[in-house]
């Protein structure tokens, strides 16, 4: 996927002026927040489950190498093949090699953000293969030649009318004048078109929400059932995943599954949760004959042990973007890469470099809603601040931001000067506020006051009021 994180500011401006986009995102956002809340309210144990989910992930990351050894032994015992991919290029090469050895031409894909991260579709296409996305949302963005704008609902930025236009453009063997005014007609059309692809596929590629060390299994979670047709019909099933997906036991994965669907889509559980272990068994009449798991690092191991390692707990539920005022205003494409929203603002700088993705951790009001609802309690605002600190220390922030910080530092380090300055500022703002005590316009803060008023100070600074109180008491 093309990286445009550098132009976040322009991307965001463009997105904000797109009324149709704004309508689509806000409509979806309101619904997902309400659905999650309703299902969470029905489960009194939800917060205890979040604590347990956090602890399971933290524990597993601490012993990750040992769990992989255990996992590897179990999945090999079941007849699976495990491949480690240090980089995105390695992962693409491994998958291509598997496809070639299988003599594959047609490849179906379940939804997988890791394959978006490594740009697998473009790579396979460039080498003569024909990969088809089968999750409806992913299929829609694939035929539009776009990336997903949300990690759970990839086509969230589109209206049904836009999808109808694309179906008419791409499904040319169907009558051009057919009625596509209802979404249900389009779902049936996609079902029929993709059914052919499922049955013709040589290799099926899925992601994994979890790997289980106890049993050597990989787990996918879907609502459509496309991931299951992808992995059950072709001769070869390839799982492409990343190192942090490991959990120790079936008990542990049960805890995580209880928070995943509720956080992601506001369901008690997704329709299909599938635990896959090895290829088909001796007497099985269906299922793949070969089962491969490709585990991608791509810079994640460097996060272990440090402050940013908390990000590796992420189970990719997307709740942070559903609750983020910035994502809800600009949508996912503005972020410029695979992972948008708060989780992307922490993860993208790690995977792309802070030089490339530096805008993202700054595109946050640090309001804290993402941390409040995160099912594995990742302190996203703190992790974004860590990136800001690193940017500043390495001199990567803008000259204007640096100048402002230098001036602020000079003021904050000189108590007398600070008090004098704030005293004057408070009086001045009180005067400007007038009778209404509100400021509709402020120099240097026009962007802020364009949408709301600043309550004017009472006229005296906190310091001077504090001193007056203390004097009175003595």
């Amino acid at each position, binding site marked *: 996927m093309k990286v445009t994180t550098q132009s976040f500011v322009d991307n965001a401006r463009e997105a904000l002026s797109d009324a149709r986009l704004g309508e689509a995102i806000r*409509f979806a956002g309101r619904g997902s927040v309400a659905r999650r809340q309703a299902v969470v309210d029905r*489960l009194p*144990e939800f917060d205890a489950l979040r604590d*347990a989910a956090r602890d399971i992930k933290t524990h597993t990351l601490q012993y*990750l*190498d*040992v769990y*992989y050894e*255990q996992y590897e032994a179990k999945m090999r015992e079941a007849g699976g093949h495990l491949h*480690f991919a*240090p980089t995105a290029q390695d992962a693409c090469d491994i998958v291509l090699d598997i496809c070639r*050895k299988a003599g594959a031409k047609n490849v179906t894909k379940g939804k997988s953000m890791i394959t978006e991260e490594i740009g697998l579709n473009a790579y396979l296409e460039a080498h003569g293969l024909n990969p088809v996305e*089968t*999750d*409806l*949302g992913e299929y*829609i963005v694939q035929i539009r030649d776009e990336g997903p704008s949300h990690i759970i*609902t*990839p086509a969230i930025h589109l209206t*049904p009318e836009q*999808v109808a236009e694309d179906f008419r453009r791409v499904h040319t063997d169907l009558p051009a004048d057919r009625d596509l005014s209802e*979404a249900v007609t*389009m*779902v049936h059309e996609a*079902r029929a078109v993709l059914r052919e692809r499922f*049955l013709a596929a040589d290799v099926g590629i899925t992601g994994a929400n979890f790997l289980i*060390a*106890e*049993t050597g*299994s990989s787990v996918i979670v879907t*609502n*459509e*059932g*496309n991931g*299951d047709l992808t992995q059950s019909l072709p001769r070869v099933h390839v799982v492409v995943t990343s*190192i942090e997906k490991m959990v*120790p*036991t*079936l*008990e542990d994965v*049960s*805890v995580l599954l209880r928070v995943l669907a509720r956080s992601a889509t506001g*369901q*008690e*559980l997704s*329709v*299909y*949760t*599938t635990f*896959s*272990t090895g290829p088909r068994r001796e*007497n*099985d009449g*269906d*299922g793949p004959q*070969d089962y491969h798991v490709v585990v991608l*690092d791509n810079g994640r*191991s460097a996060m*272990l*042990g440090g402050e940013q390692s908390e990000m590796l707990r992420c189970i990719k539920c997307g709740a942070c973007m559903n609750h983020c005022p910035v994502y809800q205003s600009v949508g996912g494409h503005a972020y410029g890469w695979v992972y948008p929203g708060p989780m992307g603002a922490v993860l993208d700088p790690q995977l792309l470099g802070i030089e490339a993705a530096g805008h993202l951790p700054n595109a946050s009001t640090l309001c804290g809603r993402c941390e409040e609802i995160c099912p594995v309690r990742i302190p996203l605002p703190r992790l974004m601040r860590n990136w800001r600190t690193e940017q500043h220390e390495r001199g990567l922030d803008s000259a204007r931001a640096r100048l402002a910080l230098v001036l602020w530092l000079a003021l904050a380090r000189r108590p007398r000067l600070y008090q004098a300055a704030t005293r004057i500022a408070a009086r001045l703002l009180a005067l400007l506020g007038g009778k209404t005590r509100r400021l509709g316009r402020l120099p240097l803060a026009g962007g802020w006051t364009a949408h709301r008023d600043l309550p004017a100070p009472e006229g005296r600074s906190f310091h001077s009021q504090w001193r007056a109180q203390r004097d009175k008491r003595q």
Partner: protein
Amino acid sequence: MSGGKSDNKARERVLGAVRRALGVRGGENARLAIVRGRLENRPRGPVPARGNLAAPGRVRLFMQMAAGADATTERVKRNEDILPAVEKFLAAHDLRHELVHGADAFIAALDWGGHKNIRRREGVARGSDEVSLTRAFAGVAETGTLVMLSGPDNPVTLNFLPFSQIAIVEAGDIAGDYETVWQRLRQHLGDGTMPRTVNWITGPSRTADIGQMLLLGAHGPARLHIIVVG
């Protein structure tokens, strides 16, 4: 696909990077013991109290939660009542009396002789199959979830290719929570052993990818009818 040298090198690169970042060498006895302990003891997290019910309430909760996920459910007393329920379902949806099922002995033992009007085929699902008849290993009351094990008895494609799926679950196999079912599976197949796939199914297939409208039957069955027996 043989592992080969490059696979081993890549494995060492990734696991080596993990160990360096964690500040460990790998193979430390204390760390191995902690992992072994967790895999042996398998501590449970918080288990929702809602499923912790006596049998009648558990079955009721299972049916209620499955209906909440848009499955249709019905309860029959005896095995003899199953095929009449199947016929009723087929007639209600105007479906041909044709279905596909696996080699499950429970299904084989149903009174097919008394229901010769239902044409059936034993095996895996094909693209042309409209209806499948399957038997669940278990049900889970907390979310109304069916637990299916792949294999010749109930081939995995029966759960996904047909437009309508009928699933039989015995009332005695309905557990309160997932943990209970995992424990039962370990007794059934042995510790740490899984069939090719374990499928948790909670309602029929759906999508909301077009304009956020929830629609059933995206790729898998648009109808899931659950018959609880006993």
